[in-house]
């Protein structure tokens, strides 16, 4: 993966960052961009195809309406906001947790390291999707639980990657010097080790982000997601699948939205990785 793909070098960064900024603005400020309230139903206007007129007032629905006459574009934007927030929080929580564990394991080594890494191994032996399904089934669905489940499944990757970097950082002269001078462990870890792992953590966070979005969407799709009326992308694909041949837009559009976001994030992650290798 040294020289790779798609828009190269800087262009990759510009394209992906640009796309992410657009997605970010569109979803975070969903209330401003959404043409109507995503919850508001209009039973007179159910299943209107994209770019078609509403029945009564003659306005145009850009991306059509769903089976309760709710505006698909508005729901996509709000759904995106929710999906992104869920994954951002989950990535943040698992990132903090995983990185802390990784740093501690790598820094202290020995028994602590062995214990923590065995724990990681054990969790990794259950495919994360299965772990997530079982946890949601047990804890129940809902926003908080989904975030918890995603965070729990995600920490291991962070811990492993950070740990392996810490192992090499530990050998660095300035770290050894600090330790020799009797600087407390915590300070060494926070002052000298953590700042040097930022880049690794960020790259990993980008990759995890796309995993989390997909996992959360899959859970919603399996009916293990969030409250029914709340729009989420996975849930929208699921809701729309019974209309797949009469109203193609219901499932297709949110699926494409997921793909677009994942694509941008992956591109961004790729760019970060290129840069870290170039350093």
């Amino acid at each position, binding site marked *: 993966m040294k020289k790779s793909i798609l828009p190269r070098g800087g262009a990759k960064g510009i394209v992906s960052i640009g796309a992410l900024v657009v997605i970010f603005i569109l979803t975070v400020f969903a209330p401003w961009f959404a043409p109507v309230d995503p919850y508001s*139903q209009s*039973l*007179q206007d159910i299943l209107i195809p994209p770019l078609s007129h509403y029945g009564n007032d003659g306005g145009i629905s850009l991306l059509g309406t769903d*089976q*309760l006459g709710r505006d698909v574009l508005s729901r996509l934007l709000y759904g995106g906001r929710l999906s992104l927030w869920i994954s951002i929080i989950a990535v943040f929580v698992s990132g903090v947790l995983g990185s802390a564990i990784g740093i501690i394991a790598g820094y202290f080594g020995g028994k602590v390291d062995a214990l923590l890494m065995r724990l990681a191994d054990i969790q990794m032996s259950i495919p994360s999707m299965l772990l997530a399904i079982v946890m949601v089934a047990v804890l129940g669905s809902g926003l908080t639980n989904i975030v918890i489940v995603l965070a729990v499944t995600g920490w291991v990757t962070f811990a492993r990657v950070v740990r392996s970097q810490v192992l090499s950082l530990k050998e660095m002269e300035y770290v050894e010097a600090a330790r020799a001078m009797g600087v407390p462990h915590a300070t060494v870890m926070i002052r000298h080790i953590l700042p040097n792992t930022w880049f690794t953590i960020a790259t990993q966070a980008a990759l995890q982000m796309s995993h989390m979005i997909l996992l959360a969407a899959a859970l919603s799709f399996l*009916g293990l997601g969030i409250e*029914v009326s709340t729009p989420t992308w996975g849930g929208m694909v699921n809701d729309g699948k*019974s209309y797949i*041949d*009469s109203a193609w837009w219901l499932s297709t559009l949110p699926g494409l939205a997921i793909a677009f976001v994942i694509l941008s994030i992956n591109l961004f992650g790729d760019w970060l990785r290129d840069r870290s290798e170039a350093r």
Partner: protein
Amino acid sequence: MLKKSRFFMSLTLLAALTAGCSTVSKEPAATGESTPGTAAEQNLDITIGRAFDVSGLDPGFLTENAQVVDNIFDTLVKRDENEKLIPGLATSWKQVDDLTWEFKLREGVSFTNGEPFNAEAVKYSLDRVIDPASNAPTASYVSTIDKVEAIDDYTVHVITKKPDPLIPTRFNRYPTEVVPPKYAEEVGQEEFAQKPIGTGPYKFVSWDKGSNVVLEANADYWNGAPEVKKVTFRSIPEASTRVSALLNGEVDIVTGVSPEDRSKIESSSNARLSTVERAGNTVYVGFKTDVKPFNDPKVRQALNYAIDVDTIVDKVLQGAAVRTNSLIGPKDFGYAGEPEGYNYDPEKAKQLLAEAGYPDGFSITLDTVSWYIKNTDVAQVIAEQLKAVGVTVKVNNVESSVYRTLVPAGKQSDMYVLGWSSTNTLDADAAIYAILRSGESYSTYHNADVDAKLDEARSSTDENKRTELYKEIQDEVIKDAPRIFLYQENQYYGVSDSLNWDGRVDTSIQVSTITAKTQ
């Protein structure tokens, strides 16, 4: 394929675990596929696509409907296509005294393993169900029975605890289907549920759990060998997939066609839609009438006025249900026509709420579950319509298995969606007792007068008296509004054009009645 997967398995050191089976090649490709044309051939072999697999095949211990086991077993009493009771394994029955019903049994019938069918078999079949120690899931369907006595080889007496006018109908449905005592004892209850034997028109062949059940015709069936020689009940959970499978000719009959798929079947060249009006559940929004604010009838009436049921039926359900205020289905005993109820009137709703002391409405959670047609959609529309009169509703879609525990335990929210039907006793008692009698696990309504009338109607054998009582109950319940009255669902089946079959009100699929269309 076989080779490859063997190779892979040995690679993963798992050959020992999964030796010898490769599912793809296990089943011949042609199984169950009957295109028009081949159907008329002698070996009629059909596949029925249902939403769920069975969980067991012992009719005495079912936890779901009896669509599959109905074909392996017989009941003493059967129903004809007009739902009239006709002789089954019993040739006649009569009430001997208040508490005793006498059944004369059919002679010369034997189980498919050769065991003879007789009074002992009937007694055995019931005893094991009504024995409290056996925890039979559907024991309540026959809980009025005290004991069964074998008078001679072909006569049984059913003794009830109180007078029970419904005994013949009770002997029309599970768990009263007759099992062979010797075999059942020999293999035990669990084994029997895996490999059932009955007197019915079909014999059990195989059960691939979670996937399909295969039955073959019983050539020696007492009522004549059926035309369909082999039937596969396949579970296809996704409604739209089920319909696609029908249109692709992979299955011949599908159950539970959802409203938006109806037109696909109607416009197809190889299948047709079979509609059974009001054969499904009567769906309503229940209130816990002892909890604020629903302890005030005015609030309950207000919410009834706030819901535009016609639009829901028309737009959300696309006409797949019939709006009704009746508690009892039109095919049930006790049905007294369509009573007047509450018409959509948001202004009146607001006024009643104000009178009850809630001029600004209130906030509440509505529990819903995916059991009924488009139920989560309906719940969301209800929430939206209640918002218009000031009541803020949070829709809580409860997972099916959780709902199954919450509701009978009374732990659901104060407002909840539930549907109920008389199933195949087709009697008002089954339609309403369990959901209106206080103290019943599915009831959240408390009305001493209604309770007394329900009890009286249950044990009276005077039909006129019962009809009168049910009408009184209905009038009172409508006025008191312990629920938001919604609609009764229709049932839709997709049927291959090569077969003669139509859905029934009692939801049974009697495969022995299916015949090929002569072309």
